[in-house]
């Protein structure tokens, strides 16, 4: 048993960590399944295994898997060409994930499953070594080598390329710092310690699909590129894609189906209808709004997965009246969060507590339990307003986008702020207008606004673009990836997050998370009222498709009965 493994066992024995967290944490560190079982046994009590692979349609491991058939997916049309290096929207990402593979893949509880890497370990928080799976073949029959892996990350970190992952790797991995040690080992020399690094070579950093070393950007849709369970055979822009089974897939037992078909749709209603009519088998990213008809349909299985997707209602700390922290706290104290979760999602969301340590992230457990949950308290809100010099009431304008449940959320905010004497005027814009481009990005300018944030794999990924001093936008909005829309810069918070990123000791890490979360909770740069549970819907004859994480598509174990 290595030091780290021993440490994990100690944490569980001391009750500072649950068995489930041990499993998740251990997988981030590339500890193999037999070792994890041994660790759990060492912890004593209960049966091993913990809670893994939470929600999957049917039992993937069941003996009577039906082979063959075509799995048909309805997904949102990609706005531009599908290419793993440049892609950023869900349609393109899901399309690529059918043919391409990552070093590792998270399951619905964010546990990392080895794929093109068989194991990984950190000799220090900034030095990560991955062992690459041997005898994997590209779709054209040539073997996967460590050079392909190195080239993939050099391409993604090349500032002169069109890589969409540059901002995700910024300050963590630079070009040329991935080293091929031998024929099966690759070492990543990071710019700084980053304990959650394996998530950056998983779908949570979706561009990190491993591609051949001679790959040219823009050629992916020609087909036949990747190592994945299915081979892209035909791609029609804006209409769909067709994949055939990869007969040489490295796991000879997989995939179960003969083919995969992806159909692109512009809007939710046609996908809902197509699933109800049985023209598609699965709708991997089912938004709650607009899909309600599916949730009560007897022919449909609804898979649900906790996630780190959320809405940030920012209050610019450099603009009156929000420059006074009491005003921010007052607004946060007006919200009836359980009411919002019920009213907007019929309960399909978790409570938010105005800090970025989402309950799903393994090291967030202590922060979730120990930072006191903010609840609706009008007396407190009025008192805070009086202290801030607004005893006569306050008029503010809330700007936001027409997207999913957000307009209704804004209306709830308006209603719930009124009893405290806060008059909220709503300004709901269409999504493109609200985001804008270049120097005109209203969401980064308005003093009080709501914006949607997608799910990430770790707290750092959620925090880095939105709550650090380095992510405060410049006056002309020219610094890219700087989305701290509250303009909140707190050196102490930054320091804590930095420590959090390089702390290998899990107990200390959780303590740091508590401090950082408490700080953010008290300062309230943004109200984070809920963490959305994501839905995935399929026909009832679909089995073996994981519920998540989020929209990421792992189709190799899916089968149709």
């Amino acid at each position: 048993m290595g030091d780290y493994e021993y440490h994990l066992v100690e944490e569980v024995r001391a009750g500072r960590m649950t068995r489930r967290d041990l499993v998740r944490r251990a997988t981030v560190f590339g500890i193999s399944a037999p070792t994890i079982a041994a660790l759990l046994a060492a912890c004593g009590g209960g049966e091993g295994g913990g809670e893994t692979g939470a929600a999957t349609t049917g039992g993937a491991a069941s003996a009577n898997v039906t082979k063959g058939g075509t799995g048909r997916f309805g997904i949102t049309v990609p706005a531009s060409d599908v290419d793993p290096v440049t892609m950023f929207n869900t349609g393109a990402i899901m399309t690529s994930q059918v043919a391409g593979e990552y070093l590792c893949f998270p399951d619905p509880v964010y546990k990392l499953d080895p794929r093109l890497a068989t194991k990984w370990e950190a000799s220090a928080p900034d030095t990560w070594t991955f062992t690459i799976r041997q005898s994997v073949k590209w779709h054209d029959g040539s073997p996967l080598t460590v050079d392909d892996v190195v080239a993939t990350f050099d391409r993604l970190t090349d500032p002169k390329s069109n890589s969409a992952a540059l901002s995700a790797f910024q300050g963590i991995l630079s070009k040329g710092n991935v080293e091929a040690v031998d024929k099966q080992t690759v070492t990543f020399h990071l710019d700084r310690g980053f304990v959650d690094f394996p998530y950056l070579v998983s779908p949570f950093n979706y561009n990190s699909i491993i591609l051949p070393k001679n790959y040219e950007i823009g050629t992916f849709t020609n087909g036949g590129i990747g190592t994945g369970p299915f081979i892209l055979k035909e791609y029609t822009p804006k209409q769909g894609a067709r994949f055939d089974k990869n007969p040489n897939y490295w796991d000879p037992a997989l995939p179960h189906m003969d083919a995969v078909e992806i159909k692109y749709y512009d809007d939710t209603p046609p996908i809902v209808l197509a699933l109800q009519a049985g023209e598609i088998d699965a709708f991997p990213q089912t938004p709650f709004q607009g899909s309600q008809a599916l949730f009560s349909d007897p022919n449909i299985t609804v898979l649900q997965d906790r996630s780190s997707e959320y809405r940030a209602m920012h209050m610019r700390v450099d603009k009156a009246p929000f420059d006074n922290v009491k005003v921010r706290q007052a607004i946060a104290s007006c919200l009836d969060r359980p009411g919002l979760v019920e009213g907007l999602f019929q309960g399909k969301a978790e409570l938010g507590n105005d800090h970025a340590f989402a309950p799903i992230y393994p090291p967030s457990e202590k922060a979730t339990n120990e930072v006191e949950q903010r609840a609706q308290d009008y007396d407190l809100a009025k008192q805070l307003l009086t202290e801030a010099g607004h005893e006569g009431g306050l008029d503010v304008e809330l700007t936001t986008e027409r997207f999913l449940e957000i307009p209704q959320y804004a209306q709830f905010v308006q209603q719930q702020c009124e009893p405290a004497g806060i008059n909220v005027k709503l300004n709901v814009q269409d999504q493109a207008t609200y985001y804008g481009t270049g120097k005109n990005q209203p969401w980064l300018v308005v003093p009080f606004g709501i914006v949607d944030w997608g799910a990430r794999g770790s707290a750092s990924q959620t925090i880095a673009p939105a709550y650090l001093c380095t992510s405060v936008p410049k006056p002309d909005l020219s610094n890219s990836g700087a989305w701290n829309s509250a303009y909140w810069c707190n050196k102490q918070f930054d320091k804590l997050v930095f420590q959090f990123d390089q702390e290998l000791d899990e107990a200390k890490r959780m303590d740091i998370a508590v401090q950082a979360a408490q700080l953010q909770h008290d300062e309230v740069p943004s109200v984070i009222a809920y963490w959305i549970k994501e839905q995935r819907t399929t026909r009832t004859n679909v089995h073996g498709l994981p519920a998540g994480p989020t929209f990421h598509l792992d189709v190799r174990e899916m089968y149709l009965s």
Partner: protein
Amino acid sequence: MRRFLLTRLALTIVTLVLVSILVFGVAEVLPGDVGRTILGPFASNEQVARLNHELGVDRPLLVRYVDWISGFVRGDWGESALLNVPVRPLVLDRLANSLILGAFALVLIVPFSIFMGVIAALKYGRATDRVISVTGLSLIALPEFVAGVLLLVVFAVKLGWFPVSSSVPSANPVDIFRQLLLPSIPLMLVLFGYISRMARAGTVEVLQSDYTRTAMLKGLPRRTVIWRHVLRNSLLPTISVVSVQIGYLVGGLVVVEKLFNYPGVGKLVLDSAIGHDLPVLEATVLMIAVLYMVSNLVADLLYGILNPRVRFAR
């Protein structure tokens, strides 16, 4: 007649050039650029600027326009930077799909609407007239997506008679009806209102005119009066309405195309405008403009055939 055609042709070309300049100008005003659309929100400004430079979209407007139009007139419609495919087959395919759907709807609905409109006029003021007029008006007010969703839920999801997502049909008549009937009904509902009302109004007017009264009074059978004198005159305004609607049928079907997932040209216009995909936007808008003008020209010619006054005035 030949002079008339030549003038019209010259006018058409001038209009197309103006339209193409306008599209370029409008696209310039729209916020954003193609580089940002391709690379997405996570790319740095330097990356976007470099890509825009590679694509040549950072050159002056005039240079880009001249570059584009000189290629276009020679048949080189360029590449879509956004979709990474040649523009010409993409646009022509989509246009053909839209034409198929539009033609199907037109062929079914125009004769029917005219017939109902004329019936309403003949029963002017009576219950039949009221029913037809009120139905037509209510249908205009019914948004396409409401009608479309209703049809889909009943006939595709519950009954399963039609596919939910319509694809381009093969030549088989059964397949044509199967694929196109459902998406064309919302269009027909809208068109029915317009066309039947025009036919009714035209017919009512003609029925009250002096020459109809004369024809009646000189003892011609009612049927002959209607066929020879009334219809021929009353259909004139209807023809112009139909020709105007062809533009809508080809370019304005975004809602129906989205709902039925039909690969038509309307969505392509919208997407390419949002994505700053100028070569695709120009080609689609110009093709729609051409269609629009051709249908107008046909309408004018038909007008001339039906109305000798127009014919001889030229």
